[in-house]
């Protein structure tokens, strides 16, 4: 299977997918650590995390897939959401929590 197909399969069969450096329990990069922390703060318990350092084909392929040159990259419901700065901004203004609630990943906070 082509690497682009592998990625498409990953992001469409899992509600929340994070391409990151390292694993959630031990991120290998500050930007990836930020992304993990923000998801935790949103109450997301199930993240399909892909360690790009363990797979160079994914590491290069994901940049083409989204036409986005950096890691981490978050996908919700198959859609590319953004990198660490964008997640921080969306978390601060509540957009991320709303998107996760809309996707049925977390329950909306009243």
């Amino acid at each position, binding site marked *: 299977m082509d690497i682009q197909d592998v990625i498409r399969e990953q992001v469409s069969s899992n509600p929340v997918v994070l391409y990151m450096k390292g694993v959630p329990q031990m991120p290998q990069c500050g930007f990836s650590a930020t992304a993990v922390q923000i998801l935790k703060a949103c109450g997301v318990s199930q993240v399909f995390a892909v360690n790009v350092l363990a797979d160079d084909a994914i590491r290069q392929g994901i940049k083409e897939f989204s036409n986005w040159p*950096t890691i981490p990259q978050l996908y919700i419901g198959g859609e590319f959401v953004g990198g660490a*700065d964008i997640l921080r901004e*969306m978390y601060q203004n509540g957009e991320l929590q709303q998107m996760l609630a809309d996707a049925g990943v977390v329950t909306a906070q009243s």
Partner: protein
Amino acid sequence: MNTIEQIRQRLQPLSPLMVEVEDDSALHAGHAGARAGGGHYDLHIISDAFAGKSTVSRHRMIYQALGEMMKGDIHALAIRAQTAEEASMQPTNKEHR
């Protein structure tokens, strides 16, 4: 021309009112990306080209302008992209991270 000057020059097509680039590479010395040679930079750019654009679109505009630099000279880039109006509504002092 050093990397920061190159970044500033490549961003000129966005007609920025302000570009601030900081080299944060020293904060990341020793980790794998730093060893590969690409630096870590922190960019604050103000341009009215961002008006009406989502944050994702703004970042894409910046990545596109930087082109090949994202594959070599720049290993990581923290971005704040604002319009003049947004910048004037927010305190300018940079939060520490």
